[in-house]
């Protein structure tokens, strides 16, 4: 608990954490919070704060198929939390391992891995997704694969840079002169010293992934309907947004608040890390 104190003193962390963990909680408790089944057709295009014919209450209105937007937003939180986290974590698994190896080994290994990472990073992200999705189709698993493929190189680069920095410190040299094995040097000496900046990057990356999944949904290339997905909701409601702005405004607020929360959290973590470093 004492270790958490410096974080809780930062308003950025508190606001960012509240937004991020708030959505996490909503995602976990979705079945309990959502008033209706997100796929159930109730009454089309009800405005927010209105009563349905059968006495239902539509807090945020309904969409053109008559599904309750509030319930869909809550279930959409679950979609984004599950897939964004899963995709970011698999991307991290690859980026971390290859980044550690390239940063520590250097030389030809590093040159080859870095070149491959640069090749993938030369694609504008959305272009890469489009190529992948056109090839393998838009399914939940494929979205995770696409995100992994496109984010892992960026994570690789960050991990590699941090590894090079940490590996140049004398305590790593000391471990080498003690005859410590490479595996132990990587995972016991170097990895624990990278967690500060990587935690920051993880939060940011989670936000990017949420944005990407949302954007794919918005473009109609994301999770196939009728999965409740914030980006998809904007896409479906766009045609009628002039008459019924609630179709698009609320999902936009939802995704923006989640990604903003993650950015603020990352920012706060970074500030605390920097303050710690200055003290040391």
């Amino acid at each position, binding site marked *: 608990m004492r270790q958490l104190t410096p974080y809780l003193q930062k308003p950025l962390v508190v606001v960012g954490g509240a937004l991020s963990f708030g959505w996490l909680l909503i995602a976990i408790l979705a079945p309990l919070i959502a008033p209706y089944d997100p796929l159930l057709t109730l009454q089309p295009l009800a405005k927010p704060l209105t009563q349905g014919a059968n006495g239902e209450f539509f807090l945020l209105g309904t969409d053109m198929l008559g599904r309750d937007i509030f319930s869909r937003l809550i279930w959409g939180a679950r979609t984004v939390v599950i897939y964004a986290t899963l995709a970011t974590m698999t991307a991290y698994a690859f980026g971390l391992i290859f980044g550690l190896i390239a940063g520590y080994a250097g030389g030809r290994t590093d040159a080859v891995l870095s070149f491959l990472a640069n090749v993938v990073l030369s694609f504008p992200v959305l272009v890469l997704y489009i190529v992948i999705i056109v090839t393998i189709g838009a399914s939940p698993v494929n979205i995770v694969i696409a995100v992994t493929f496109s984010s892992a190189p960026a994570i690789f680069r960050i991990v590699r840079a941090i590894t090079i920095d940490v590996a140049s*410190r*004398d*305590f790593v*040299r*000391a*471990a*080498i*002169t*003690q*005859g*410590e*094995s490479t595996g132990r040097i990587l995972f016991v*000496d170097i990895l*624990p*010293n990278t967690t500060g900046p990587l935690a920051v990057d993880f939060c940011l990356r989670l936000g990017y992934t949420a944005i990407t999944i949302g954007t794919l949904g918005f473009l109609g290339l994301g999770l196939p309907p009728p999965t409740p997905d914030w980006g998809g909701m904007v896409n479906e409601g766009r045609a009628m947004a002039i008459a019924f702005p609630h179709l698009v405004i609320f999902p936009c607020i939802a995704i923006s608040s989640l990604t903003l929360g993650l950015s603020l959290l990352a920012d706060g973590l970074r500030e605390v890390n920097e303050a710690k470093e200055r003290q*040391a």
Partner: protein
Amino acid sequence: MSEPLLHIRDLSVALPKGADRPFAVKGVTLDVNPAEILCIVGESGSGKSVLTATLMGAAPKGLSVAGGEAVMGGRNLLTLTERQWRQIRGKDIGMIFQEPMASLNPALTVAQQIEEVFELHADLPKAERAARARKLVEEMHLPEPDRILQSWPHQLSGGQCQRVVIAMALAMSPKLLIADEPTTALDVTTQAQVLKLIRELRDSHGHGIIFITHDLGVVADIADRIAVMRHGEVVEIGTAEQVLKHPQHDYTRALIAAVPSLVPHDRPAPGAAEPALDVTGLNHSYGAKQVLHDIQIAVAPGRVVSIVGESGSGKSTIAKNLIRLIDPDSGRIAVAGEDILGLKGSALRGMRRKIQMIFQDPFGSLNPRRRVGPMIARAAVLSGASRAEAAGRARELLELVGLDRSAWNRRPAAFSGGQRQRIGIARALAMRPDVLIADESVSALDVSVQAQVLDLLADLQKRLSLAVVFITHDLRVAAQISDEIVVLSKGHVVERGPASEVLTRPQHPYTRDLIAAAPGRDAF
């Protein structure tokens, strides 16, 4: 006696809440006279740098003047507004800093930076500014003034940069010059030249100079008067003669006692033992540039060989070769008779145990995430000890290097620089090495702590009969600990021999220069 140039009375600077003490500077009273060098001496944390920064109206963030005054030319400097300060800085007070390279703007040429002082404080035509800048550069004894003026800082050496900084500080002939550790980052021979320059300036221009340093050798060379600071207070002030020869305060006495002497101890002649470390014909290049030429070093068990050299001499490259962080172009490095250069994989790992290193930076050499006890025990395990043995050995070593039992469960951040160096020593010794390499291992430490760590090293070395390669830029330190000294210059060994021989009857001109440049040679 003339009026003092600067009169500081009862000056206190408060630290922010939550710091380890309430005041960074407390109740300081002192005068600076024209044509006088006042040295302020103190170890890290003594408040000497905060004091001078406050005098320039540039106290670090969070610090505030809590009382007192600093009067110069009838004005209290502590109450000036930023606008008034701008008139004074650079014109009435000049300042020189510790990191000469970093003190110059990398994107402007030397000429632009010197001339800027005239742009700010004097209404001179362009040609006149340029002419004055050139004259200043000449006065600083810089070679090829025209080339220097057109250069960017990154094209100059550290010593040249410091001369440029001094030229800027002196451009308007300020009455007061504040120099904060101006020679600490320089090599000894360069340091000696810059000190000479500063003395000349005092004599020829009559500047009053506040010179801050931690190095009593430098103080002995340059001070007219000395103020000794500790924990933010001036504990003793007086003429150089008084303070150095007849110190009144215990702390001053302890500081003076801790200065290592240039006179080497008497050492027994070497026995006929086989060398524990035998380096022959070592050559090393970085790219096309050869930095080590045919290096030979032999160290017998129980003996200390110091490698002495300035920056760029290649001494750290030797260390890296010895522990096989990098491999040489050619040569042989034998530990206990076995050439370690050919070894690979597990054979190499097995060999590493026998040759261990103590690093320079006490903050970078310990993994911040690991607890001290297990860290040392791990080294013992790697040398082949069982877990129980290793824990026992680690506990013994902690005691041996003078650390408390409670150190076991703490992380490195909980320790001071000197304590961390002790932990580093314990970790190296846990492997039961035959050869110990100490790469500038005491250079980052305050002088009193330095003396303690040196004593510890010397003691352990004798007791454990270790062969030690001691790498340093500091002749005084080398004099204290070495049996033998090897002088390295530009990658060549220029002189070697028993410490007493090399230090008292140097043969090579470079060795003579080094010894002549050692600050405070006559005083200590």
